[in-house]
């Protein structure tokens, strides 16, 4: 039995590791699958030590084939297992895209509700770590467009721990986007706290002048932006969306009705990104409250650039502040 420890400080990667350990410990049907997740503990060590403690039958080093990983996970789920699969990097998920979109997302509906596929697909995503091509992408919108999938992304260690627990308990397939540049950020994790709903956004900083909405790696940036703006006398609210599908529009609406201005920030390209959907829906919901158009800060409509250029491509403090200025200028 894993010992429950209250308020333990741990890195985000370690929080996921602890969460997976707890799930393996409490439910014999939970399996971990992926490339290098066993002996190596994953390229980011997120599954470190799990195979040693739970064996090769439950923490499975798979052949190097992403479609095979997700496809066999579907079969295992049909047999009653709850597989948690790792896609090693964001840019490697596309060989599995067909299995995720065509099979994983649709089988519950196709079976008129008879089949449930409690599969979690873990994807370390996003840039900022100076990696080579295909190791820094943010493909969440490509999954959010697909009915049948749920998409979440924690921004801190505590959420990483609890959202993973909830994702594994979900009877729906969940794509779990892990902000890899935050893997080493430490935070307090209360392993006994009863968490709120998985798909509910959280106000992480209260404010009155403008709402910054973000998820995953961009939440920390938005908090830094709010600090910088405060020095200029601007009081920004920061909303950690946590879930991309479903999106918690009620919480965004409540915040925007208060602040009347919204800037959405994500690493993914702005074009057809989650910010576009948020802008459209919030414009519908809050038309008479808005003092400015909803602005978006994100990646450009270009392939993710070589590492030496990523700081220009990714939203940074100044680019977000620039958007804040533009929104406040209306």
């Amino acid at each position: 039995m894993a010992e429950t420890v209250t308020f333990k400080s741990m890195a985000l990667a370690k929080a996921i590791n602890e969460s997976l350990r707890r799930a393996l410990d409490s439910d014999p049907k939970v399996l971990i699958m992926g490339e290098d997740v066993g002996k190596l503990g994953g390229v980011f060590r997120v599954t470190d030590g799990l195979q040693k403690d739970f064996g090769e039958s439950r923490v499975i080093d798979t052949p190097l084939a992403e479609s095979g990983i997700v496809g066999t996970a579907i079969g295992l789920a049909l047999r009653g297992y709850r597989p948690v699969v790792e896609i090693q990097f964001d840019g490697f998920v596309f060989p599995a895209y067909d299995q995720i979109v065509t099979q994983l997302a649709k089988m519950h509906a196709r079976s008129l509700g008879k089949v449930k596929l409690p599969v979690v697909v873990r994807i370390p995503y996003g840039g900022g770590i100076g990696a080579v091509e295909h190791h820094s992408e943010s493909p969440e919108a490509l999954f959010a467009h697909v009915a049948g999938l749920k998409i979440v992304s924690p921004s801190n260690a505590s959420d990483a721990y609890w959202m993973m627990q909830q994702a594994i308990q979900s009877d729906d397939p969940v794509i779990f986007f892990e902000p890899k540049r935050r893997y080493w950020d430490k935070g307090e994790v209360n392993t006994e706290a009863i968490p709120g709903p998985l798909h509910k956004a959280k106000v992480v900083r209260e404010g009155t002048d403008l709402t910054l909405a973000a998820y995953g790696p961009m939440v920390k940036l938005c908090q830094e932006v709010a600090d910088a703006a405060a020095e200029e006398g601007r009081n920004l609210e920061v909303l950690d969306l946590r879930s991309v599908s479903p999106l918690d529009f009620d919480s965004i609406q409540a915040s925007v009705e208060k602040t009347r201005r919204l800037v959405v920030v994500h690493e993914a390209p702005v074009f057809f990104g989650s910010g576009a959907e948020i802008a459209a829906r919030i414009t519908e919901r809050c038309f008479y409250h808005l003092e400015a158009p909803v602005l978006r800060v994100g990646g450009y409509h270009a392939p993710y650039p070589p590492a030496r250029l990523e700081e220009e491509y990714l939203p940074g403090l100044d680019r977000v502040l620039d958007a804040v200025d533009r929104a406040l200028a209306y």
Partner: protein
Amino acid sequence: MTVESTAARKPRRSAGTKSTAGKTTTARKSPSADPELVQLLTPEGKRVKNAEYDKYVAGITPEELRGLYRDMVLTRRFDAEATSLQRQGELGLWASLLGQEAAQIGSGRATREDDYVFPTYREHGVAWCRGVDPTNLLGMFRGVNNGGWDPNSNNFQLYTIVIGSQTLHATGYAMGIAKDGADSAVIAYFGDGASSQGDVAESFTFSAVYNAPVVFFCQNNQWAISEPTEKQTRVPLYQRAQGFGFPGVRVDGNDVLACLAVTKWALERARSGEGPTLVEAYTYRMGAHTTSDDPTRYRGDEERQAWEAKDPILRLRRYLEASNHADEGFFAELEAESEALGKRVREAVRAMPDPDHFAIFENVYADGHALVDEERAQFAAYQASFADVEGGH
């Protein structure tokens, strides 16, 4: 590419050299003359000995033989009815299994109740063997659902339309059986076209690496819509297994007894921990790919005629008659049962109601989703707005 260069690249060992429309069929080798092909019943209905596989059908009774015959006849009748229903506008589409009855009934009857079947969209005969009511197969072709049966009530997964995907599901399920320590097995169906899919190759890899109890049952019906098997492979498909480290066998797919025996052997291997097997059932798609297809654009009728002589039902009938295992009364009774099945299917399809409009929003998620709820409410309000208009006038 020229015709000459195509011919030059033809695999020498392939028994499946075939003509395209307008060319002669003289180059085609008869499957029965192929030493690589397991056959227990010749097209003439003569039982031939096979040292390796006879034992798997050694105890078969005349009653069981009549059962296999009945299965094939009723499956063909059901299939013909479905084709007619499409022509009458009752179904949007139908994928006929005509010609593949032996491959499906032989392999389907080899499975045990606790085994699990992963079909494509043409396994109507296997569905029959698993006890899935044939009328349930028609909902998706009529367009009232995307799969109308509970996979777990007959251990028969829903039809898979994107070809090859199901072989990975089958492999995963088989890995689960192994983890559970059960002695059940899985059989995954696919075709010569799907054999080119990466998922099929990945399922071979995974099943071999984990020694999963799965039988890959490939019905090589010679055509992937308009593309002959030569467009998929340079080696006979069963030989692909060797490179993955498990056995592959080619069986006469029009010989129900051989299909039964070979599949039983393969399933026993799976049960006893010997891992995966590839069975290539060498058969022929007698009809079009689906009711939307026109095979006259890509293949000649002489090829079809050559395969007609190897008809799976006819050869078992010849055997039953020659060995006095069935009398006129049996055949007459079966014909009546067959007509009754056609009638029942016809009536059931015509009585199938369109789904409720709100079915769009049903079962999108198991645990619900805020957006689906919101859009369902919007749709309800939109629909209700018409009721207001009607009430107002």
